[in-house]
């Protein structure tokens, strides 16, 4: 204020002084003329600045602030400082909002912000993907138009949002979502969505496992106790007794196999049981497996063995033998008589070892493939049990392979057959030195004699 007054008084003071001097020297006429000119100049000066101010005020607020002179300088200066402070404040706010938005977008759960009439205001990318929304189309659309599950509608209308609800995603029937509404800032709501497919899957597998084990054990037990009751109640001749005892023995064997498989699985899973690596030659193992296959097939299938590269494998021989044997026995069980089964081993160019069993069997539909290694998962229950499967074979294979960092690759076509291939990682496979090694050439000879397809049937 002081500055404004003092600067504002400089020009009038000069004019007044000039008028006084002129009056003293040249008389009243001159004095009046100088006074008039001074006043006109002062008015023009102020009008000019007023014009600048009004031009700035009618333009954008963050436009350049004009520079004033004289008494206007402090005024314009103050405006300039205000504008600059405000701009900086706004910039900070914008950054803050952007940071919040980035944080919201980075949250691993989906978030949809709903207004008071449950219309979509904003959503992070994960929510867009999980709920199949598209902000370009769906901003300010009612959420229930797009998330249409009746359970969600009921949840939204109930007003009780303490617990989340679990629904099957409307976009992908294999995805399970947990949805929860969180009211905030008076009349808005946040819809949090989380993909709980895996959790649900785990819970389902646990439930299924208990149910399956009980069921699998109950079936043979029922048969055995049924026979025991019959034998207690009825007089049987020797032949009948023999037959019943034989059937009971079969069922007892089934149970034994199942319990043995369960124990194998639990040993494989147990943390105390560390993998004991040993080096062993693959060729003798392949020959053993091939002989086992012959015995199991009883001459019903064409069997072939193809050993591409002799190699030494690092791993547990017993475990791998049981895994490979499981794959072979599956192929035999699921291939009708007169079909063929090809067992092969080769070392790939990248150094990984591939054991594969290809059959001309009934094949597996693509839908079943992801669940095939689940315990007791059966594509066709009646068939599996009729051929003496426990439903645990592939689960054991999976665990053995996990311990060896190996992968199971399944290719299959309904009615055409399947290929189950085990890929052992390169560090576990060592190519045997080429011919010259007497042991190796001996195996090679053996292999060749076993190789031509159909010789064994």
């Amino acid at each position, binding site marked *: 204020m002081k500055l404004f007054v003092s600067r504002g008084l400089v020009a009038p003071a000069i004019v007044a002084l000039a008028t006084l001097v002129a009056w003293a020297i040249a008389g009243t006429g001159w004095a009046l003329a100088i006074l008039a000119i001074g006043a006109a100049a002062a008015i023009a000066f102020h009008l000019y600045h007023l014009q600048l101010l009004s031009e700035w005020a009618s333009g954008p607020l963050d436009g350049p602030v004009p520079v004033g002179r004289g008494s206007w300088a402090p005024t314009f200066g103050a405006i300039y400082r205000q504008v600059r402070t405000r701009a900086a404040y706004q910039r900070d706010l914008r950054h803050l909002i952007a940071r919040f938005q980035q944080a919201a977008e980075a949250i691993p759960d989906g978030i949809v912000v709903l207004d008071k009439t449950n219309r979509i205001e904003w959503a992070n990318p994960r929510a867009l993907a999980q709920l*199949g929304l598209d902000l370009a189309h*769906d901003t300010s*659309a009612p959420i229930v138009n797009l998330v249409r*599950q009746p359970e969600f509608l009921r949840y939204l209308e109930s007003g009780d949002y303490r617990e989340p609800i679990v629904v099957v995603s409307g976009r992908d*029937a294999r995805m399970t979502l947990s949805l929860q509404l969180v009211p905030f800032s008076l009349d808005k709501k946040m819809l949090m969505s989380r993909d709980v497919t895996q959790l649900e899957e785990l819970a389902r597998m646990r439930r299924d496992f208990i149910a399956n084990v009980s069921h699998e054990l109950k079936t043979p037990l029922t048969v055995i106790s049924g026979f025991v009751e019959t034998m207690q109640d009825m007089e049987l001749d020797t032949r009948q007794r023999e037959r019943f005892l034989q059937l009971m023995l079969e069922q007892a064997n089934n149970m034994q196999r199942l319990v043995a498989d369960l124990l194998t699985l639990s040993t494989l899973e147990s943390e105390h049981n560390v993998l004991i690596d040993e080096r062993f030659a693959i060729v003798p193992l392949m020959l053993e497996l091939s002989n086992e296959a012959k015995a199991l097939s009883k001459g019903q299938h064409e069997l072939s063995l193809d050993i591409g590269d002799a190699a030494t494998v690092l791993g547990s021989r017993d475990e791998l033998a049981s895994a490979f044997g499981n794959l072979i026995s599956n192929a035999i069980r699921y291939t009708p008589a007169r079909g063929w089964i090809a067992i092969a081993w080769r070392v790939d160019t990248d150094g990984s070892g591939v054991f594969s069993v290809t059959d001309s069997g009934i094949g597996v*539909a693509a839908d079943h493939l992801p669940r095939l290694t689940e315990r007791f998962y059966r594509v*066709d229950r009646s068939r599996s049990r009729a051929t003496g499967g426990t439903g645990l074979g592939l689960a054991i294979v999976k665990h053995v392979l996990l311990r060896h960092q190996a992968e199971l690759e399944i290719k299959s076509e309904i009615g055409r057959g399947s290929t189950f291939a085990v890929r052992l990682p390169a560090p576990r496979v060592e190519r045997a030195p080429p011919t010259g090694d007497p042991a190796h050439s001996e195996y090679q000879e053996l292999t060749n004699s076993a190789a031509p397809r159909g010789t064994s049937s």
Partner: protein
Amino acid sequence: MTQDHTNKQFDVEMEGIRSGVLSMGGMVEKQLTRAIKALSQEEDADLLDAVGADEAAINQLQINIDQQCAQIIARRQPAAVDLRMVLTVSKIVNDLERIGDEVKKIAYKAAQTRGSDQLTRVRYYDVGRAAANALAMLQHALDAFARLDVERAASIIDEDEAIDAAFSAILRQLISYMMEDPRTITPALEIVFIAKSIERIGDHAKNIAEAVVQVVKGKDVRHSSAKQIRAEVAQP
């Protein structure tokens, strides 16, 4: 409805019938998801009860929404796009109710054919997949209606052709089973009915998509070829 009316209550009513259709659609989607489960899973004792109960709820919704439509026409005398919307809603509700009926049939037939082993694979795999396609198509049609997205609606009309093709493939497959083994005839016929229901669901979903084109473009595209409809949609 993009532009607001001076009468706010009218807007609320229009929004109400649209949301009503979509919540009815949500129930039908859920029913179809259940029916697909019934096709693939071993047993679910409560399934048929649940399907029956929801079917009744869907029918009730149809009646309610139809009533609301009639009231809007009587009280508000809507014109142009609003009138088209009301008429279309009434049509879509009809299609949804019919889909609900077909789904009920599928669930019951699926329960009936459960015991037969020879055709399990056809049922699990081919029919199950066709049903999943029909469900996706219904979801897309309802999304197109929620967003009034004509391009999406036009693409649904192509999806129907895929379902029709799947239906004839299933039929051929079943015929070969029946010729091989006469014991499969009874379950195969049941599966034919299921497949036919799925094919009908595809048709109803297509009707919904056509209705969306009609609301937005004001042109009746029923009985037009997919090409004509695309041309119509492409016009500004």
